[in-house]
């Protein structure tokens, strides 16, 4: 299983800090597509992180990985 984390407007939209899903074997792009359909999220300009490191769209998710969606940041 995988922990999927949301931040900023994504968190507000989904209404959860994280959800648990089996995403193993899927690419980030495939997971984005799935979540877009399930929650009506717009994820095409959103970065992903796998286990706290930025990940590209073609990275394949392993069982146990934590996936986070990172909207454009605005710290500082």
């Amino acid at each position, binding site marked *: 299983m995988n922990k999927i*984390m949301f*931040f*900023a*407007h994504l*968190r*507000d939209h989904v209404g959860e800090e994280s959800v648990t899903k089996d995403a193993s074997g899927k690419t980030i792009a495939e997971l984005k597509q799935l979540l877009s359909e399930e929650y009506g999220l717009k994820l095409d*300009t*959103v*970065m992903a*992180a796998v286990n*706290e*490191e*930025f*990940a*590209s769209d073609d990275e394949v998710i392993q069982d146990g990985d934590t996936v*986070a969606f*990172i*909207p*454009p*940041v*605005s*710290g*500082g």
Partner: protein
Amino acid sequence: MNFEISKEPIDIQSVIDKVVQREAGAITTFIGTVRELTHGKKTLYLIYEAYEAMAVKKLEQIGKEIKERWDGAEVAITHRTGKLDITDVAVVIAVSTPHRADAYEANRYAIERIKEIVPIWKKEHWEDGEEWIGNQLETVAYPEGKPEAKDLNE
């Protein structure tokens, strides 16, 4: 613990203390504060949210990049989260180096990198609404809202 995310107000002196070194002749700090007016619109307060574990890692990465680029540099960064009022301190960056030019340049580099790769977001609250703010880079076009390829997996 030179790189921290803090729910409590930041003690600036304690961040500075982390970079004091006998080899340094210069310490620069950058203190990001909550400004009342942005593009003429009045901010009431901000909420900062962080992906804390990853944010600390990315701050550490910025520190590492600085030490590679500026010889003898020491770096400490603390970023606040939660509700901040006008003039509250959101971030403190302290950099010490043997010579002053490096201390300014390395410090500037740190704040620009924070605005590129550190997973922290602010929500502005105005009298007539609220909104999560996208990237705040004032100088770099960043239309896709994602870090450059070189930033990935570093």
